[in-house]
């Protein structure tokens, strides 16, 4: 079976892993490449999940096992895509790893390069980068993991304030779009703090909370009503150092009153942006990105980015883990359908 087709999946987060599992399961070869040294992507950095408080490590372990069981999937970690050129019905792709390059022939490509966080230091008023206890949401996930591992041995963080829409919904210094997942992971993070440290206080500053998803609204309400996280409607204006703490100034827009709070830590839910890797890959495969750098979609085939190139996950737009997996499966379906054509030709190409 020398004619077994090969798909290259770039990025081994939830979307890429799912795509690899599905394509491998359908009987085609998969090369699953990731620049990191293990599978899981950003998901590896996360502590717990919404809306069911499940451990992301379990999900990664499950998908990794599926991948390891499939002989058709080759994992290439610490690997980046160096070059790509059209070659017959596919691409000749140069992969780089530890300074060495190798060439592979890919009959289809799935891009699943994920996202990055917007650089919150753009907002001098929040002091990210200047004050130690102002962190972005991914840095806070690492802290949460640490606290969870040392449960009972760590001192309470005291008062934690969460700022949503840092870089999102900001036409002046940030991005005009809503990053979609911050409302949910912020509720999760605040809820986790209250679970680990019941005597701590958590405040979430929000403009509105957007919980559009199955069990999402119930999740946020449970964090407010059962875990007693305080939601304050208003976008914080300023963080000031005061007596070793952080004084936050904002308006409670529901009452039209200015509010102040001294916090011990500020967590910034920075906007979701495509990473530089996504731009580079888009260039290499000559596919279209939107003005923000997310891979562009077309209405008729939303998982398709170009000729034999598909995409899934947050490189297309901010998406939660579940959505990334679904998109990974959808992109895999496109590849499998393509590979199943009698001559490997796209019907409508």
């Amino acid at each position, binding site marked *: 079976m020398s004619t077994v087709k090969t798909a290259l999946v770039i990025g081994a987060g939830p979307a890429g892993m799912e795509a690899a599992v599905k394509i491998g399961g359908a009987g085609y070869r998969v090369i699953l490449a990731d620049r990191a040294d293990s599978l899981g992507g950003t998901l590896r950095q996360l502590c717990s999940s919404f809306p069911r408080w499940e451990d992301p490590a379990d999900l990664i372990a499950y998908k990794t096992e599926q991948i390891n069981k499939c002989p058709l999937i080759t994992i290439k970690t610490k690997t980046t895509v160096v070059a790509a050129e059209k070659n017959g019905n596919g691409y000749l792709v140069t992969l780089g790893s530890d300074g060495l390059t190798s060439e592979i022939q890919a009959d289809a490509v799935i891009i699943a390069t994920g996202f990055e966080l917007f650089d919150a230091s753009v907002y001098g008023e929040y002091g990210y980068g200047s004050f130690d206890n102002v962190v972005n949401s991914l840095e806070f996930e690492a802290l949460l993991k640490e606290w969870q591992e040392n449960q009972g041995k760590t001192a309470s963080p005291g008062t934690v304030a969460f700022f949503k829409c840092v870089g999102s919904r900001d036409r002046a210094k940030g991005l005009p779009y809503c990053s979609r997942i911050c409302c949910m992971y912020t509720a999760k993070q605040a809820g986790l703090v209250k679970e680990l440290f019941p005597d701590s206080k958590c405040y979430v500053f929000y403009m509105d909370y957007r919980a559009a998803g199955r069990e999402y609204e119930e999740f946020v309400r449970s964090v407010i009503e059962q875990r007693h996280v*305080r939601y304050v409607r208003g976008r914080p204006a300023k963080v000031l150092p005061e007596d070793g703490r952080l004084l936050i100034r904002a308006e409670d827009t529901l*009452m039209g*009153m200015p*509010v102040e709070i001294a916090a011990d830590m500020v967590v910034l839910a920075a906007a979701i942006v495509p990473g530089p890797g996504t731009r580079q890959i888009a260039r290499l495969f000559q596919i279209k990105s939107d003005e923000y750098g997310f891979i562009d979609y077309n209405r008729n085939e939303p998982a398709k980015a170009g000729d034999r190139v598909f995409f899934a996950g947050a490189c297309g737009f901010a998406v939660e883990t579940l959505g990334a997996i679904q998109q990974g499966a959808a992109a895999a379906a496109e590849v499998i359908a393509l590979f199943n054509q009698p001559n490997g030709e796209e019907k409508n190409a």
Partner: protein
Amino acid sequence: MPDASGIETQAFFKTIKLDAIDDSLPQEIKTACGVDVETCLECGKCSGGCSNVRIFDITPRQVVKLIKTGQEKPLLAMDALWACVSCQLCGDRCPAGIDIARIMDYLREKAYQKGIKATRYQVQLFHELMLGFIKKTGRVAEGQLIIRFNLKTGRYFKDADLGRRLFLKGKIKPFSSKIKNREDLRRIFQESIEREEDQ
């Protein structure tokens, strides 16, 4: 600065220290009224449909919000406490099922017990007269109540024209009817007075 209704509103615009808020007021409301204000979605459906909101100084949603933020003082001093007619549209329509009218009742009682006087025109007198009728007959005799109220406040002919029209249409009667079992009624009043004395 007192606004047109005579209520001090200045306190509302002082910066609120969120960390200074304790949850004793929400807890008190939870115990007394069985209402968890944290379930409030801040949607404003209560205020939007309130039958008397045009004469309220603090809207029903703001009442719930003030409880959340533990601000008892403006709650007990607000005019809305006395402008509220307990029509219960707010609670009936609330998506979180919050019984706001019950909260208003509770706050009204608390203000009364604390001797906080209503600033609205003769509202105390009106309440007392009305309760007097109920105590005596078990019913509100609108005609007599209006006449008695206007006599006491010295505005003899204030509702004369309206009263005449209502009378001609049979909407108010010159004499009030009485309920049958006035002994039970007397006991209700007696018990509520005893309960208040116990507190």
